[in-house]
């Protein structure tokens, strides 16, 4: 019987083609916009997640405190309050996976006739692990290079392109402030960070070499920044507490004195960026859902008109033996057919629109199976929900009244 009813529902849709198409259009626009909005929202979330993952996860930055001389305060990182042995002590703490002391600054890199200004980072091999940075060509420097202050360097993609063009940088020697450095490895590409800075425009050298040969430092062994990676995001608060306690103890800070260092949580930046895009995609979805709702109301409206128009038909059907639930099923099927057909067209248009957006802009688009399924389920739900009231109205008609209806 359901087959016969489906056939009749199809007929009824065809009988008033223009009206059916217009009603369907509501669903098409609703579902289409949900799909596009979800694709854009999820794409944005994906893009932010990608950027965040290039920064390294669960990171703290410990920065040395400020100094003041003759009333002039230096700002954070100004004073020589952190040193390499602090970093070694932090590395012994529970929940800490990698610790890398950092001394960095912008320097002019020179290779033959080419020169390029880039960020030079003096650090230890742990830095690469903490930021999950890979070597695509050559090899990394080691702890012994750090101990012996070797003149070796790892070069980022952007810096390499500017100095060497298409040539392989490995084995070449560049100069920084007249000191020669041998390139031993090329870093994998990370792209921009959340500030928009190119993370690949960099040169990584051993900390000791940086301090002795490049930047120079009045206090041997002191560093301005120590990067600390916690084992997991759950371990982060504990790590922050123990690092603070350890440094206060090592620096002999009395209870009533302020810290002579700062701890910054890089994850907090990442979290807020992720939260922003999550809210954005929710908002986009919510706006799109409103059009789906409007589409559903359109279906209800047309079904109500249809029930009134076909009152006599309903009377005839009841007279020849249709049960109330047969009438209910018939009208529900019609509403469902309109919404599902509209949904399918909307899905196709939505996916097409998302792909088109991807093609003409460089926006990242993610069309997930789950979002398509959700859109489909919601559309079917809308059909049943908004079709139910008119269908029940049809089923509850009095056969005598319905037969008499002109």
């Amino acid at each position, binding site marked *: 019987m359901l*087959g*016969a009813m489906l056939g009749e529902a199809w007929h009824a849709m065809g009988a008033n083609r223009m009206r059916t198409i217009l009603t369907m259009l509501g669903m098409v626009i609703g579902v289409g916009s949900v799909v596009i909005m979800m694709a854009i929202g999820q794409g944005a979330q994906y893009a932010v997640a990608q950027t965040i993952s290039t920064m390294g996860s669960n990171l703290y930055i410990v920065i040395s405190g400020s100094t003041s001389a003759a009333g002039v305060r230096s700002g954070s990182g100004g004073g020589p309050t952190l040193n390499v042995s602090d970093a070694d002590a932090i590395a012994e703490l529970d929940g800490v996976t990698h610790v890398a002391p950092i001394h960095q600054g912008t320097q002019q890199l020179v290779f033959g006739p080419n020169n390029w200004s880039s960020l030079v980072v003096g650090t230890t091999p742990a830095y690469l692990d903490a930021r999950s940075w890979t070597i695509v060509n050559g090899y990394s420097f080691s702890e012994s290079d750090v101990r012996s202050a070797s003149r070796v360097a790892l070069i980022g993609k952007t810096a390499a392109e500017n100095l060497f063009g298409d040539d392989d940088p490995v084995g070449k020697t560049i100069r920084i402030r007249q000191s020669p450095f041998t390139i031993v490895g090329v870093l994998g590409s990370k792209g921009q960070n959340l500030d928009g800075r190119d993370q690949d425009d960099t040169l990584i050298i051993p900390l000791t070499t940086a301090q002795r040969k490049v930047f120079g430092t009045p206090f041997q062994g002191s560093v301005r920044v120590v990067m600390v990676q916690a084992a997991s995001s759950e371990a982060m608060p504990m790590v922050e507490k123990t690092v603070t306690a350890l440094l206060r103890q090592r620096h002999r800070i009395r209870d009533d004195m302020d810290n002579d260092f700062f701890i910054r949580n890089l994850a907090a930046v990442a979290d807020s960026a992720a939260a922003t895009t999550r809210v954005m995609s929710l908002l986009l979805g919510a706006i799109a859902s409103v059009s789906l709702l409007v589409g559903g109301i359109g279906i209800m409206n047309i079904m109500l008109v249809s029930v009134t128009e076909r009152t006599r038909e309903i009377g005839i*059907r*009841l007279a*020849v*033996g249709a*049960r109330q639930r047969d009438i209910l099923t018939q009208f529900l099927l019609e509403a469902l057919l309109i919404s599902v057909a509209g949904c399918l067209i909307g899905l196709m248009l939505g996916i097409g629109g998302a792909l088109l957006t991807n093609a003409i802009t460089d926006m990242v688009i993610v069309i997930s199976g789950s979002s398509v399924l959700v859109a489909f389920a919601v559309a079917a739900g809308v059909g049943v929900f908004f079709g139910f009231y008119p269908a029940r109205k049809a089923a509850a008609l009095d056969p*005598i009244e319905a037969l008499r209806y002109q």
Partner: protein
Amino acid sequence: MADAVVRVCALGKSYVTAAGLFPALKEVDLVIDSGEFVAIMGPSGSGKSTFMNLLGCLDTPSSGAYFLVDRDVAQLAPDELSSLRNRTIGFVFQGFNLLPRMNLEDNVALPLVYSGIEREIRHDKGRQMLARVGLEGYAKSLPSRISGGQQQRVAIARALVNSPQLILADEPTGNLDSHTSEEIMSLFETLNQEGITIVLVTHEPDIAAHAKRQVRFLDGHIVSDLATPQREPAQC
């Protein structure tokens, strides 16, 4: 009486109107045996339409009892009433009441949809019934393409399709000219000769003359009950 198709005892029906309770039908007793051809007559407002609605299980009585093929209709659930309308009763209306968008074959087979009959059998049956009322070859036509008399034949075919025990015809010739009316009435007579019980509402005496028994209503009562050949009507 075992072969009574319709047995009505003290049947009453009142409607609630603005002026209070209006009794449309009062204490009606009537027995219609299998194979009878009954014409129900009376002026408008006499209660004959109300009576037909009750006979057709489209309405429920306010008082009294109605047995259709020995089943007490008052005791039946809505779905069982639907089933009675579907299998036991066939309706023929004044306005034909065909579904305009469906072809004739599907119109005739419509009751079979609600009996859960398969598609192929429905179509076969639909064609058979069209042939029986003299409309073979019209299976794929739409109701709007044929004349009123032909439409009424289609409606009769639809009433017959589920082999009912009772055909209820409400002014079946009301919208037809006299020549076509005669054709329709002779079709009813043929069906009756084949053993089908027919109850027909009309206010035209020459139409009623085709029936073997004339029951006349006035003000909600039966005022006369004449059978040809003469016989005493069965008591409730």
